[in-house]
């Protein structure tokens, strides 16, 4: 017993030693910049070029700014809108393509095109579709709502366009991931359920859904992170306008750091973005409930 403990300790020690280089890389490349970034959110550079500690002043500025509070709210709307719609569409598409239907391969290949298209390219495509004078989508909308209606000139329809664009890009990824989960479910389970007299809905409710729960949590987490951090798609599509009506926190971060070169306020915005991401991550991880899902 004593010998086995000692062997186990030695193995643990060796494992720890082997992990050290990776740990050092993690600290050097991830934690250190993260700490620097967070520290930067508590500093300001004066006109003399000197950087000084200002406590939570930048957070206070942001908290008192109606524009930023609206940015946070819009980020939540953007995430909920995109993830909600693309998840339902993606799950539905996954159920379809995992069935033995004709031309499933072609459908699968076609559907992933939006996902592999770079976001700026797809945003420019969308932009040309909703161009008020020559965009085909604009012509359709103007037929119903009058010739003066501009999709990107209205706060609500501009935000809807941003969400639709993101859904168009996200749902193929969700579909692929969920389809992989569905394909891994043993057929015997469905056969037994069929023998027991379960209909399609009950098979979905008691077999497919529980056994793809982990895939759902992972895919929701990934797409949520993408959406929260999406600045390029929104910027290329609306630049945050009209007014600030489509400006999300990630776009604000991009604007402050790369367009305004206001690195300290950008760091503060980044910290808020990190917190929002943390909240969503915690929510999704609680979906899995810390339990190991056996497939």
């Amino acid at each position, binding site marked *: 017993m004593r010998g086995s403990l000692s062997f186990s300790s030695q193995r643990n020690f060796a494992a720890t030693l082997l992990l050290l280089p990776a740990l050092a890389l993690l600290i050097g490349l991830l934690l250190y910049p993260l700490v620097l970034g967070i520290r930067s959110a508590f500093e300001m550079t004066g006109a003399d070029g000197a950087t000084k500690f200002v406590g939570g002043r930048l957070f206070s500025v942001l908290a008192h700014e109606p524009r930023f509070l609206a940015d946070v709210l819009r980020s939540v709307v953007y995430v909920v809108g995109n993830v909600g719609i693309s998840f339902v569409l993606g799950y539905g598409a996954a159920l379809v393509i995992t069935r033995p239907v004709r031309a499933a391969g072609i459908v699968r290949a076609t559907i992933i095109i939006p996902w592999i298209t770079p976001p700026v390219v797809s945003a420019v495509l969308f932009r040309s579709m909703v161009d*008020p*004078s020559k965009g085909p989508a604009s012509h359709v909308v103007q037929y119903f709502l009058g010739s003066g209606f501009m999709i990107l000139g209205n706060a609500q329809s501009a935000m809807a366009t941003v969400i639709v664009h993101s859904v168009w890009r996200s749902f193929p990824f969700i579909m692929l991931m969920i389809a992989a989960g569905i394909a891994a479910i043993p057929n015997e389970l469905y056969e037994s359920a069929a023998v027991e007299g379960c209909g399609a809905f009950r098979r979905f409710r008691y077999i497919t859904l529980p056994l793809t729960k982990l895939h759902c949590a992972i895919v929701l987490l990934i797409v949520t992170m993408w959406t929260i951090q999406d600045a390029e798609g929104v910027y290329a599509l609306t630049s945050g306008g009209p*007014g600030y*009506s489509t400006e999300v926190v990630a776009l604000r971060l991009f604007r402050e750091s790369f*367009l*305004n070169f206001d690195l300290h306020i950008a760091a503060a915005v980044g910290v808020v973005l990190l917190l929002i991401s943390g909240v969503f991550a915690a929510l999704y991880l609680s979906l899995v409930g810390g339990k190991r899902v056996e497939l």
Partner: protein
Amino acid sequence: MFALGTVARVKARPRRRTWSWAVILVGAFLSVIMGCRPGGNAIKLAHIYDPLSAPSARANCEWIERVLQRYREMHPDVEISIEQFKWDQIDAKLMTDYRAGASHDLAWTSPQWMAKHFDEGDLLDVSPLLNWSAQETADFSWSPAWKTAEREGKVIGVPNGVHTRVVCFRRDYFEEAGLDPDNPPQTLDEILEAAVKLTRQEEGEDVWGLGVYCGRERGTIELAFAPLLWHYGGELWDETTGRAIFASEAGVKAARFLYDLMHKHKVCPTWCATGTYDDDLLEPFLNGRMAMVWGWGSYWIEILEQKGWIQGLFPPTPDGKTVVADVFVTPTIPQAQFTNAWLMSVHAISKRPQDAANLLDFLVQPEQLIDFPDAGLPARRSMWDRPEYQTQFYRRWRRAAERGRSMPATPHYNELADGIAAAIQEILLQDADAAKTLKRAEDEYNARFAQL
């Protein structure tokens, strides 16, 4: 034997694979290293023209290639490498790289960023490097762009042209509407009256009387809002207090003028508040959908020549004439017109500052600038006296340039421009109250920057 040979082949295969992987990895590593190598000993010239974006940008790239070829012929020992950044990010890029210790040599910079560059210290004082005579300096120092780059005797940028704006109009449309193209509007009332006459809303053939850009880019403040605000007696920013003051009575009047153009008189399309400067003004004008464009830049003269709407005016010749399109000075009061230019600056951590300054000196010589499309107009005052700039077309441009002024020297100009553009969009597209919306934007700016 056969079996042994098979085993040998099977065993050899992984080895070959290992070798191929090693070769690929080493190749990739070397490519990365070579890619990161900053052009060896070359002078790095950073410009803003993306050859894939628009024909005008391609023309500027071709000009750069042409003049650099001449420079290389004169200095065969000098190597020059080109860097390209987005026009609205190059200044921030120079600052970020300065902090990171990544050097550039010569770069295009924007006058609106000069106050921030002075604070940051990322650009060199080029006056001792250029060592120009007082006369040569005076040839440039008349320009509003030069003034933004000069502080306490230090000069951190030299203009390579003059960007001013005028109203460009279609002579044929004027005649069709019973207006005299040789006597264009001179006041705001007159331009409005002309715009009403020029607007045609016919099925499949809409022509808008006047296009004014009011979108989400900083062109909104520079081309539309600020000239009108100055015209009505207001200011954007107070240098002594560091406070934004654009939400004044004059600011509200300026915003209402723009609103009325779109919604009351319906002479300007509302989509001028949604797209980009090029999409909303340049393209519709060239496609015949606008009779007048407010904010036509001097960098677009070449396009008119290519279109055949002016002849012999780019590059300028003494016999140049307008044919289909013409220009007139924006009908605001004197000094209520935005004028700037691209500057050329030497990065503070340049490894070859003197060589960079020599190249700068070469690039701003009259014989180089004469066919630089983005120069727009001559940066050197002496060039204006040449016969080719004595046509009525260029006399109008000169008058516009002389009536011009630069944007305020706030280190937070981008935030100011961004806040105003957003407020104007809200007023024009969402019917937001002009006074309240401008005040909110002003308060947001002041809360962040006025007390710093």
